[in-house]
């Protein structure tokens, strides 16, 4: 995977497959601290200590339906954080959910570009309409602070029984998320 937002998508998919009804995606860039942090917090099925220990092993998967017992997602993400002096931490509790935090040194020469964050977020929000998403982007530059929030719970409340895949709703989400990313200067990272 050639950009960070593809890894983010893979982690979001894990949360949805864990049965989460709410996934919080928090993205924080701090130019002074030179950090880029992704937090993905879900209220899915969570992992017991043994599964959590195994989660960072590329030769393990929790998906019992698989013939191929290899789950690369989280271990790949960990590897790319460590390549640029960052780290990945996962906390999880069975029945309560999982919190994943990936930290990157923003200026590191080996840090992947963030890529199309908008496409990752738009696809997830609309493609998992049964799951609620709360998104918050914070970007502190040396001079200014930018912030963007999107909450599908509020959107669904306004829409009533209109599905998120209704054409004009898709257009609304595409425009809102793209504007949010543009206004927080995330496209330049």
């Amino acid at each position, binding site marked *: 995977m050639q950009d960070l937002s593809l890894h983010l998508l893979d982690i979001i998919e894990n949360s949805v497959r864990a049965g989460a009804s709410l996934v919080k995606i928090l993205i924080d860039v701090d130019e002074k601290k030179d950090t880029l942090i992704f937090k993905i917090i879900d209220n899915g099925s969570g992992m017991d200590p043994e599964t959590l220990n195994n989660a960072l092993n590329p030769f393990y998967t929790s998906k019992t339906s698989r013939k*191929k017992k290899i*789950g690369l997602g989280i271990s790949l993400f960990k590897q790319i954080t460590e390549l640029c002096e960052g780290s990945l931490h996962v906390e999880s509790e069975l029945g309560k959910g999982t919190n994943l935090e990936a930290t990157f040194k923003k200026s590191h020469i080996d840090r992947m570009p963030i890529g199309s964050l908008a496409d990752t977020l738009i696809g997830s929000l609309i493609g*998992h309409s049964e799951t609620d998403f709360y998104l918050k982007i914070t970007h502190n530059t040396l001079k200014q602070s930018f912030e963007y929030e999107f909450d599908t719970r509020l959107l669904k409340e306004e*829409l009533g029984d209109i599905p998120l895949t209704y*054409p004009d709703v898709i257009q*609304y989400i595409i425009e809102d998320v793209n504007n949010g990313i543009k206004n927080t200067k995330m496209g330049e990272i």
Partner: protein
Amino acid sequence: MKTLADLKKIREKAQKDMKLRNTGSRFKIVVGMGTSGIAMGAREVMKTFLDEISTRQLVDVIVSQTGEKGLSSMEPVVDVIEDGKEIITYGNMNPERVKKVVSEHIVNGQPVADFIISRD
């Protein structure tokens, strides 16, 4: 910038549409979004479906994402499920192929034989 008033307009228009059609969704599109699918371009496939649905105003199509389907060598993989018909699975999808599937299968009802990898 879109506002709550825009959302209200969308809701009113959609409610009128739904009343007129008086039916649910005719097509369900499911894009495989496992790790190998993502690495092979499933995100761009999903985005192209959303763009096409929005641009063509396809009000009776829903699109969703799912995990891996065990067809890693043919990722990105997409199921097209039409009410009362067999499930058609397309493989090795990319944005250009998505546009062809939308135009020929979803809009005109003719599955694109060249891209089909299984029928259920």
